[in-house]
């Protein structure tokens, strides 16, 4: 993995009506890695992400993506990033193909629809309207729409929240596929530790607007064990998730 830092965040701050949401955080994301932001609700994950994306005004501090200062040149940043928003929605009454084509136009690009639709496994849904898609399909459309400009950095904000275990696993495979085929950096937020372990090279754990830990998942677990952590009950080598998937099958239900 190359060691170039594609995202550099320095002392980022954000408050809403005097309530501090992001409290002076700094970190870097390396080119090509998948970087996870973990933390409870209200920890400031989404605010951080949206400031880096240029969707939310930065109160203090700086964020740069590929050397471009986000607050100074938000338009230049938009050209090179793909953004999947938390609970995003698309136009009603436009088909999957029409939406993707239109988003391509927003970047002044012609989209290779066939390969994009194959990439996100939406074959057979080309003519379906966005409001007729299942939750998992909607998220895949959302990811496809954020790939129309072949971005250098892909932001995923809680990509699997609200999906059933089958759809969640399906989306993990999809994200891994995209990572393998494109030279893309992924920054995601999640509530699911399993998801972070599965996808992320490094994770930052946020709480009350601050980053309280940042390392690879393995290193974080080892540090915990070093501190003398003992699990409350004996860990089994399978989880309830595994039981569920074994019983209901891995096939997608949609």
């Amino acid at each position, binding site marked *: 993995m190359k060691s170039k830092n594609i995202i550099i965040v320095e002392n980022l701050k954000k408050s809403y009506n005097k309530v501090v949401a992001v409290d002076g955080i700094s970190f870097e994301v390396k080119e090509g890695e998948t970087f996870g932001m973990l933390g409870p609700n209200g920890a400031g994950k989404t605010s951080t992400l949206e400031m880096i994306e240029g969707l939310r005004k930065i109160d203090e501090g700086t964020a740069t993506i590929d050397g471009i200062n986000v607050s100074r040149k938000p*338009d230049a940043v*938009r050209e090179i990033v793909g*953004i999947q*928003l938390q609970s995003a*929605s698309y*136009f*009603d009454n436009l088909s999957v193909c029409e939406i993707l084509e239109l988003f391509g136009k927003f970047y002044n690009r012609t989209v290779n629809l066939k390969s994009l639709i194959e990439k996100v496994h939406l074959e057979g849904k080309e003519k379906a309207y966005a409001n007729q898609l299942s939750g998992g399909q909607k998220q895949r459309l959302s990811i496809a729409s954020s790939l129309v400009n072949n971005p250098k950095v892909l932001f995923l904000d809680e990509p699997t929240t609200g999906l059933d275990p089958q759809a969640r696993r399906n989306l993990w495979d999809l994200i891994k596929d995209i990572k393998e085929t494109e030279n893309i950096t992924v920054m995601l937020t999640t509530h699911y530790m399993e998801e972070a372990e599965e996808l992320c090279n490094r994770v930052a754990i946020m709480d009350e607007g601050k980053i309280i830990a940042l390392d690879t998942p393995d290193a974080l677990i080892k540090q915990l064990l070093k501190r003398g952590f003992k699990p409350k009950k004996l860990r089994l080598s399978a989880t309830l998730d595994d039981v569920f998937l074994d019983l209901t099958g891995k096939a997608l239900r949609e």
Partner: protein
Amino acid sequence: MKNLSILYDLTYANLKMFFRDKSALFWSLFFPFIIIGIFGMFDFASLGNSNVGLVYSENTAAYAEPVRAAFESNDSYKFFTGTKSEELRALENDDRVVVLEFTSNNERSKVDVNVYMGKENEQTGEIITLVTEKILADVSLQMMHIELPFEVNKEVVNTNNLRFIDFMVPGVIALALMQGALFGVIGAIVGNREKGVLRRIFATPLPKSVFLVSNITARTIISLFQIAILLIFAYLVFKIHIVGSFVLVIALSVLGSLTFLTMAILMSGFAKTSESARAMVMPVQMVFMFTGGVYFDRSVLPDWLYTISGFFPLTYLADTLRDVMIKGETLSSSSIQTGLVALIVWLVILVILSVRTFKWEIE
């Protein structure tokens, strides 16, 4: 150039979305029809009743019949005959404007004509009395074989012959333009903002101006389409024809549409939800509609309201459209020039304000 091509694609997409939304399509296209259809069927001439009661006997029929015949040749009056008590009761119940009683006065071997009228109908009563006197005078002269030394010739010439429906159609066009703009924008902008569609677009490099202009263009095309159908309907069913320039009607419609669209965009900057946007739009459109001379002439308004409503964009639009469509006025007429300039001033002010206040999201 780049933005023009995006503009074209986004406008096309907006049109597709509109025509695929069947319920919106139905309401926006058929609402004006319902209005025109209903008002077109109203017979306003019958609103003020002009029923005349006649009371006469065989002895006085020679005088009463010619009066009746003379009035009946004019569609404005309907005649009823009955006994005196029946007719007077009808008069009391406001079913008659006037009751004429022809009685023979044996003492003077003459016929007495008694005219009964309600206080509120004195004017009509006077007219009917005068006409009756005239007819009776003619009848008497004829009976005496006296020839009048003069003759009055009447000739009917073609005038604009305005019907209520002719007055209505330009107003309904203006109204449809306003409603299409106000409610269309709520769906396209406030609704999509509420659902998070606009946030997603905001995450792309699409300029705000291209987004707004494409919405305005699409909506204007839809409005023109709507007006075309409306005019065809009004022509086929009510035989409405445009006296003035068709091109001017279209130009005014486009200008009006742009004005109301920018007004709607301005309002959308203050509404977080579709619900609140609707609540904001309703009073505005009600005031414009009832004071803008859409359904009735503004001269019935009290002076202060007449003056204020004269500055509303809907008033300018309805008035100029009416002047062109039924009076055939052209660009050289000062009322058209005033209307055009006023609408352009409104448009410019609204564009400046709406571009400043438009937000992809309201926090």
